[in-house]
Structures are given as C-alpha cells and as structure tokens.
C-alpha cells in the first residue's frame, strides 16, 4: 500500500492569492503530486513526491526502497565468496559486468591474488562493452524522457550485438556471472574477437547518426541546456561520480586516477563536459554528451585491448576454499558505468564474508536530485531524473 504523501518536516504548503482583472482574489495553493512508483519516466520504481506550484517544482523528495532485495545480507549468508557474484549482477542490472568485476577485484586484492594478463584484458573488453550497453540504455531512455521515442529503439538495436557477444561468451544476456574471483568462468569463444571488431566498426557511424538525430537536435538542446545545473562544488559535496561528475567539468575517472587492471597501458581520454552550444557545465545536455563521448572512448579501449590480447590461462591459481585472514578488510573502488562502484568487505576468517557493503553510484547520484530539482519545471524534472541515469536495482539493492 502507498503511504499518504509525507512532506519534509521543514516544509509547509504555501497558500497564495492571485488578483484577477475584475478585482476578485483567487486563492491558490501548492499541490502535492506523487510521481511514481508506477510512472513511465521514473526509470523503475522510484517514487518522487513533488510539491508543484502550477508547473514549477518547489520541492522534490525521492522515496526509495521499492526494489530492496537485501543484497548485503544475502552476501553474508553465502557459504563462500564466489557465491556472492550472481547477487552483484542483480544490483545494477544494466551494467552487470562492471558490478561483478568490482567485487571480484576486491576479493582478489584481499587475498593478494595476481590474475593472468589475459584475464585483465578480457575483463577490460567486457567492462567497456558493458559500459557502451549501459550508456546506450541511458541515452535511449533519455530520448523517451524528452519525448522522442525513436532514439530509444535505435539504441536497443545497437545494444543487441553487444548482448550477442556476451551471450556467446557466457550464455547469458543480462546477468552474466562471468567474472569470477581469480579469473573468468570461460575463455573467449573462437569467433568473439572477429565479431567484437566488427561491432566496433559498425558502431562508430551509428554514434554519429545518433548524435545527429538527438544530441544536436535543436529542440533537444533547448530542452536540456541549462537545466538541472549541478555546480562543481555541489557535485563534489554530494560525492557524485561517473558521467554526472564529468558533465560538471570535474576531470575525475577512477580508471585513470586510481588505476586498476590494464587501463594505464591503453590510450584513451577521460571525457569531460565542455559546455558548448550555449549550454552550461553541469547541465543535462553535458551529462548526456559525456555519455555519448564515453562510448567512443570505450570503443577505442576495446579495439586496443582486442589487438593486444595476450594468450594464456583465464584462471589464476586460487585456493579451493577462499578464506581471507581474520579481520581483513578492504575497500576497492572501480569505475562502473554510472560512477564509483565500491565494495567494502570485512572478513571474519570463515569462508563467507562477515560484511559486504556496496557503494552504489546510482544511489549516491540520486541524492542530489532534491537539491537541483527545486525551482525547475515539471517537464524538466523528468529530464533531470533521466540525466542522473539511475538504476533502481542499484539504488535499493
């Protein structure tokens, strides 16, 4: 059952008066509206409780928890560390590969396992493919939010070959359980490299086409420019990360600034919002554009990684039963598709983790919504929520 709207404690509905031309006074009042959890553009089961004055949003309070599945508690109940990986898949279901990589990396660093170089390269390829797939969903649904339906289907067409690649590798299209502690579940299938190269060749022109269709569309630019601006200091104070932070003009990417795996061996650039076309740094358009440009960089990474893929084993020698030292604890952060994805793991010396805490980027990024939504139009609120690119599976976990 839905609870009746609850306002923040420091908020009172403001009554107002309008004088008409005939001299009468009309009483006006702000209105509380529930946006979601079954609303087409809250990207899942997010519920926004908004106070609107006509079309203008005065207050916006996100209510979360509709998709809570006790990931962290589940992780403690597993009989070994490996079994947690399928649960990490289900957090950010649009970007499962990066989730499991983050967890696997954390456990490996805890156990001080060195994985073979081939594994690192394959992981990079997979994570970047996943990043493209995830960004495609983000920009596609953003098209829907702004009222254009066609870009959404275009992105899903382009996402298809990526999912095909994943399917031929590990049999799954959404939740992979592919990256394991100390390695991978399977080696790459024989035709993978060829197909991945083909995809890279096919996808570059599609990106340009997509930019022409949506990103540089006059109406779209007018709609998203200077909307939902997050100033740099606010972004940093709210611990925002990922494309959202880079859209604000902050040059920060964990793949470069806290290097892991083989990213430092590859040639690519961190994409930062530039604020061209009359837009301002930190607005919706720049966040959207950072995603578009990141996809191109991901293609660069994939192409280099495919070219430099070494031969070798895909499983490191790890103990059969993973038992980290007693009271060992670690926090490892990786750059997921949506930002800093961190795992904090505490071991009590047994075969299952004592505590696993996931720092989900979508959850942290969502926290800035009330701050930037104040005073915008109702239509802009939809765009702002879309540009934050939340996946409720990760917000609620």
């Amino acid at each position: 059952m839905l609870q009746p709207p609850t306002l923040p404690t420091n908020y009172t509905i403001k009554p107002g008066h309008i004088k008409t031309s005939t001299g009468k006074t009309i009483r006006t009042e702000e209105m509380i509206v529930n946006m979601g959890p079954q609303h087409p553009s809250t990207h899942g089961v997010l519920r926004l409780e908004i106070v609107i004055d006509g079309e203008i949003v005065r207050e916006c309070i996100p209510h979360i928890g509709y998709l809570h599945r006790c990931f962290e508690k589940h992780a403690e109940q597993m009989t070994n560390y490996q079994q947690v990986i399928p649960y990490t898949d289900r957090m950010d279901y649009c970007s499962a590969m990066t989730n499991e990589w983050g967890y696997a990396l954390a456990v490996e660093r805890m156990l001080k396992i060195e994985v073979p170089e081939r594994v690192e390269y394959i992981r990079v390829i997979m994570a970047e493919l996943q990043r493209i797939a995830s960004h495609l969903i983000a920009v596609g649904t953003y098209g829907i939010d702004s009222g254009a339906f066609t870009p959404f289907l275009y992105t899903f067409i382009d996402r298809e070959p990526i999912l095909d690649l994943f399917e031929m590798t590990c049999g799954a299209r959404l939740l992979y359980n592919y990256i394991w502690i100390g390695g991978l579940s399977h080696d790459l299938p024989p035709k993978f490299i060829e197909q991945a190269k083909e995809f890279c060749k096919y996808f570059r022109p599609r990106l340009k086409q997509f930019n022409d269709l949506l990103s540089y569309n006059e109406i779209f630019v007018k709609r998203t420019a200077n909307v939902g601006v997050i100033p740099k200091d606010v972004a940093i104070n709210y611990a925002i990360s990922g494309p959202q932070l880079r859209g604000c003009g902050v040059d920060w990417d964990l793949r470069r600034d806290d290097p892991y795996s083989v990213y430092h061996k590859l040639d690519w650039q961190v994409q930062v919002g530039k604020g061209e076309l009359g837009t301002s740094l930190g607005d919706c358009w720049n966040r959207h554009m950072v995603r578009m440009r990141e996809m191109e960089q991901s293609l660069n990474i994939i192409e280099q990684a495919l070219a430099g893929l070494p031969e070798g084993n895909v499983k490191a020698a790890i103990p059969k039963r993973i038992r980290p030292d007693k009271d060992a604890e670690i926090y490892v952060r990786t750059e997921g598709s949506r930002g800093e994805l961190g795992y904090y793991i505490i071991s009590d010396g047994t075969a299952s983790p004592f505590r696993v805490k996931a720092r989900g980027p979508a959850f942290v990024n969502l926290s800035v919504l009330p701050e930037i939504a104040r005073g915008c139009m109702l239509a802009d609120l939809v765009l702002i929520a879309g540009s934050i690119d939340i996946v409720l599976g990760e917000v609620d976990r």
Partner: protein
Amino acid sequence: MDIHSLLQAVQGFLTNEIVLAVILSSLPLIFVLIYVLFVLYTEMKLAGHIQDRVAYMRTGWHGVLQNIADMVKLLLKEDIVPDKADKLFFRLAPYVTFAGSYAAYAVLPFSSIYIGANINLGLFFLVASGSLVVIGILMAGWSSDNKWSMLGGVRSAAQMISYELPTSLAIVIIAMITGSLNLQEIVKFQDGGIQNWLVFGGSLPLQQKLFLLPFTIITFVIFLVSSNAEINRTPFDLPEAESELVQGYFTEYSGLRFAMFYLTEYTNLFTVFAVAVSMFLGGWSSPFGSFMSGPVWGIFWFVVKTYVMVVVQIWVRWTLPRVRVDQLMYVSWKVLTPWLLFCLFAVGFILVI
C-alpha cells in the same frame, strides 16, 4: 400492404428532410472511421520503419487487421469510472471532444459538389468548433480526479488557446487574398493547376503573385506548425506527454471512452490538414489543371493531399523530441504571431497596390 406502398413509405421516409440530413451528415462519419483505421495502420507501419523494425506482422497480411482487433479489444474492455470522479462530466467529456472535432467536417469541401454545409463563415465555424474540443479536454482533465489529468487538461487549454491566434491570423490572411471565408470559394479560387495554389500566391495576376509568394509560403509553414500544436501532436504533445503526465487528460479513461479520445485525436489530425490543404494546396482541385479533375477526382485529390500531409506529420512525430511549456508559449507569442502580423500587413499592402 403490398410492396408498392412499402417502397413508397421507404421513399417518403428517406426523402424526409430530417432523415436526409441525418444520413448526409453521417456520411463523413463512415469516412472518418475508415480513414482512422487507415491512418492508424500507416502511422504504426511508418513509425516501425522509421525505427528500423517491421511493426505489426501477425494479424492478417502484414498486420492489416491489427487495428480492427485493437478496436474490438477497446470496445470489450471494462469501462472504469473512478470513484471520486465527477461522473457526469467524466462521461460527457469524450463525446464533447469528438463532437467538436466532428463538427468541422460540416464545412470541409470534399469535392466541388460535396460539402456538408456551404456556409459563408466556413473558416470561422472551423475555429469555433475547434474551441469546443478544448472544453471537452478541460472537462476530462478536471473530472478525472487525477492531478496528472488536470495538469494535462490545463496545459491543453493554455496551448490550444494560444495557438488559435496564429491559426486565426493565417485564416485572416487567406480571407484577405481570396475575399471569402467560405472554404468552397477558397478552393475554387485555387482551381486550375498547381500554380494557382494559395501557397504559391493563388490565381492572382502574375505580378501580384510574385510579391505575395514569400508571404504565403511563410503563412503556410506557420499554419502547419500552429495546427500541429492545436491537435497536440509532437513536438507539441504536452497535454498528453507520456513521460511527464502519463497519458495527460485521458489517463483515467478506458474502453469505449478512451477509444473516443483516440478517435478524436485522429479526426483532428485529418481536419487540420484538410483545412491546410483547402486553404493552401488547392483542396479538391487537380494539380494538373483540367487533367484528372472533376467531382469524383475531387474527392480523390482532397483525400490524397491530406493523406500526404498526415504522413509528413507522422514523420515529424517520430523524429522530434517535445518542447517545454514555456518554449511552447514562446514559439506562439513571440515567433509565430509577430511573423504572421508582419505577413498580414505585407499582404494587405500588396493587395491594395
């Protein structure tokens, strides 16, 4: 009673003025229903191909029967009236909107011999009946007892009222050039081939036409944009903006009443482009002068021209994003209206000279 007197009775019944009026006035309704099926199919197929997919394929050959299946489904659905809705207005609203949009068919010249009511204030009547749609939408939005519906209804009212201004100004310009508000007269003014269409200056002397040409083209484009806004289609589909207001003013409707709104949307789509065709693109007159012209060809040309315009609209709809409320108002009051006022003065000046 023998067969002869029965036939006489039938004949008497059919030639009764009221019965005849009912039959003649429902002729466009049959046309509308068939046309809506056609346009729905076109829209879905076209949208599908624009989006790199094939759209309906299962129901009949290439899914041609899908719309009939959808219609049957809608008719069989439960008709839900929300508990706290204003029941009377809630039930009335779809019919008011449909009546408003259907009334326009009275003055549309389908052919040189077929027009529902050949009244002298044809275009004026169109604008007036279009306003009835706003009332229906407001009723629907208000009575649904849903905040999103109300927002949609209010948005729609604001939008349609502001966009009536550019539309009416365009009509005034046409009335000035042709000297008539009667659509039949306006179409007759453009008879005789593509060069006589009002978008190219109408059948005026060549010198005047050349001066008028830029202004009539501007008027035509602005009329298209503003009529797009009047029927609430992308990029001006704010009243039913799916991503913002769920379904706008008809969120709470289901079954037959929902179908009525849907029907209204597509009748409106035909109406505005039929008016655009009659006003600017020669209506029922053949683009090749006397070749393929005549009363029956008239219907053909009228429907085909309108259909082409509708297809263009569908193309626009599936390409562009949606504008925001303030931008919508900006476009109407600060761009379209001043331009049309300028055109109005310029056209008046040229006509006087």
